[in-house]
């Protein structure tokens, strides 16, 4: 009986110490990790779609509260020739291998999609994972109106799916649709905020 | 009761019939000669260079490993020379020298000596080496690119590449007779089909390779290709084309029946060969690779110990603790 009690106590104390230590560490590193993710994962994706911007879109960001979501979302602003006219943000959709992040950029003047880029994904290497590099596929989204709901051709839309990767293509479309929804919803707030940035 | 006299061994002295490892190796080398000479005539001096470098470096690696592992020097048994020769027969006539030397290193050291030398290798060393090179430097083993400087009086293309790219439409300029006589681009010693067949038949008649493997390998190719061809003759080429192109013939007679990587019982030998032929055509017709022979042989090498477990059931009592 005494041994039993000892086992329970040792395990409990050890686990709670470990949990406490890790929770403290997680809290302390959270900000740094977020900024690392911004520079190494979202950064390249943002630079990719906001090519030619005069500012550093990763630094020039603001955040807005979206209805029904706990955390605020980040919006990245692209300034062209002193004129802040592009905004990019990330939406998520479920792909073949799980959650997939897609960065979508909008031109706030012409109300068009400027480009899309994939940030994080778990798609099959060689099949769905080609979404990272397949510019032909991603270029199809550029120029669509900002209220578009793109779909792949098989679902009655106009987007040519990547060969062999319909589910991944569908997920990108879904994420872009979510982005356009969000853009419509927050349009006025986004436009006000974007104006405050200048090159 | 089993016949008690059947398994009895008489008293010494015994008579040695003169067969040795080297005897077999030299006979196989002799059997390749027709195909090799035809290849040399077709491709000239560069092919001779590749051939000598390959044989020479294979023997040098063997000697080096013998010295390193402090074992008796075994280059005299001809096996290293045979590995070098077969390896060169698969290569295009124009390849960088370091590719040949790396290839024979992989074949002799990693393919054979690591496992304790001749008779211990689970894979055919030549096939291992060629597969590893195919993964690493596909651009140098592309026959159309490597042989671009040659002027032939026939369609100068590697038939399987044309087949992969254009389907049967790419093959109109090839006739079975021409293919048999080596009118195709390909490995130094792998194009002259007639020579390979004559060499193979010689080896079978002398008993150096088992006919079961060679014949069933070709039969596997023939049957599978025929099925594909009957299913859709416009897309899939006929069986004769598959047998006469690429490494099919050299694979059937010289690569698949290699001693330590192929089965020894009758039914397993048939299964082994048929499976190899089947996989070859499957890879050629459906896979991404141009020629399936190399990978097919690697796979059947891998499964041969399992196939070899298929044996005739012993009559009467089985001694489990024998």
């Amino acid at each position, binding site marked *: 009986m005494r*041994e039993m009690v*000892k*086992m329970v106590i*040792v*395990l409990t104390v*050890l*686990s709670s110490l*470990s949990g406490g*230590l*890790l929770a403290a*560490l*997680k809290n302390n*590193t959270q900000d*740094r*990790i977020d900024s*690392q*993710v911004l*520079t*190494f994962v979202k950064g390249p994706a943002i630079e990719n779609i906001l090519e030619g911007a005069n500012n550093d879109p990763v630094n020039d960001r603001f955040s807005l509260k979206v209805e029904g979501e706990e955390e605020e979302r980040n919006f990245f602003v692209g300034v062209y020739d002193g004129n802040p006219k592009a905004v990019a943000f990330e939406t998520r959709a479920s792909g073949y291998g799980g959650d997939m992040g897609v960065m979508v950029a909008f031109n706030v003047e012409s109300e068009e999609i400027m480009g899309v880029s994939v940030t994080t994904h778990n798609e099959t290497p060689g099949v769905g994972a080609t979404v990272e590099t397949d510019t032909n596929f991603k270029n199809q989204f550029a120029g669509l109106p900002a209220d578009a709901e793109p779909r792949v051709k098989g679902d009655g839309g106009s987007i040519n799916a990547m060969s062999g990767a319909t589910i991944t293509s569908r997920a990108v479309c879904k994420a872009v649709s979510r982005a356009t929804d969000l853009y419509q919803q927050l349009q006025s707030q986004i436009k006000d905020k974007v104006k405050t940035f200048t090159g | 009761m089993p016949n008690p006299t059947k398994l009895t061994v008489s008293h010494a002295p015994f008579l040695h019939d003169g067969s040795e490892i080297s005897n077999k190796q030299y006979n196989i080398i002799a059997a390749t000669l027709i195909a090799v000479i035809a290849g040399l005539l077709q491709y000239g001096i560069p092919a001779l260079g590749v051939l000598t470098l390959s044989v020479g470096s294979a023997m040098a690696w063997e000697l080096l490993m013998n010295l*390193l592992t402090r074992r008796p020097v075994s280059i005299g048994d001809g096996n290293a020379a045979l590995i070098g020769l077969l390896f060169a027969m698969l290569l295009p006539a124009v390849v*960088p020298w370091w590719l040949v030397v*790396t290839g024979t290193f992989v074949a002799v050291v*990693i393919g054979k000596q*690591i496992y304790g030398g001749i008779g211990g290798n689970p894979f055919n060393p030549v096939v291992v080496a060629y597969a*590893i*090179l195919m*993964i*690493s*430097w596909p651009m*140098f083993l592309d026959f159309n690119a490597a042989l671009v400087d040659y002027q032939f009086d026939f369609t100068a293309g590697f038939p399987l590449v044309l087949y992969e790219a254009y389907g049967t439409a790419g093959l109109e300029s090839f006739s079975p007779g021409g293919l048999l006589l080596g009118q195709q681009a390909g490995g130094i010693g792998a194009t002259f089909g007639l020579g390979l067949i004559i060499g193979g038949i010689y080896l079978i008649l002398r008993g150096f390779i088992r006919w079961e493997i060679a014949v069933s390998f070709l039969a596997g190719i023939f049957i599978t290709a025929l099925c594909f061809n009957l299913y859709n003759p416009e897309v899939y080429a006929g069986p004769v084309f598959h047998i006469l192109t690429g490494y099919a013939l050299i694979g059937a007679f010289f690569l698949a029946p290699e001693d330590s990587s192929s089965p020894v019982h009758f039914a397993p030998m048939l299964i082994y060969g048929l499976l190899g032929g089947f996989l070859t055509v499957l890879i050629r017709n459906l896979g991404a690779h141009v020629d399936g022979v190399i990978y097919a042989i690697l796979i059947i090498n891998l499964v041969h110990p399992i196939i070899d477990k298929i044996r005739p059931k012993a009559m009467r009592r089985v001694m489990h603790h024998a």
Partner: protein
Amino acid sequence: MAKTIGQEFVKGLWEEIPPFRLVLGLCPTLAVTKSVENGIGMGLATTFVLVCANLLVSILSGIIPSKIRIACFIIIIATFVTVVELMMQAYAYQLFQNLGIFIPLIVVNCIVLGRAEAFASKNKVIPSFADGLGIGVGFTLSLTAISAVRECLGNGTLLGYSIFGPAFEPFSFMVEAPGAFICLGLLLCIMNLVGQK
């Protein structure tokens, strides 16, 4: 049989060097040694976990009941692995991206649990520290050696710097998975050859 602290440390560098002598921890050895940078990063992460886990296990060995010792070891090891993972995410994100899933997998690296069970739980604090450090440094050296061979031949570079010049055609087989096995096997073979003398 008692060894000095120095001997405990040195044995991890040659006598019991993983993965060559103790053929343990093969999963990270084979998976992350595509480049020297990854190899060193993985080695250092494992060293940190080994040293900390060994220290803590030997301190707590009197308290931990033997029936649940494995569970306790795993809690200790997993804690330090998570620490490494968080720190690496915060300060070396690119390395974290390269090593990916193999950082959390240090938890199940049998070297770490093996040292905790076989050494630290039966020895005092200082020798355990020396043992963990020795084995960890040995592991780092082995990973560096394997990854140096693979990166050199397979990519023509060392730590990202080209060493053979542009004429070199990379032997890309070496950075593929089967190349890892062959490379490990050949190095083991050379170690044995040298060790025999």
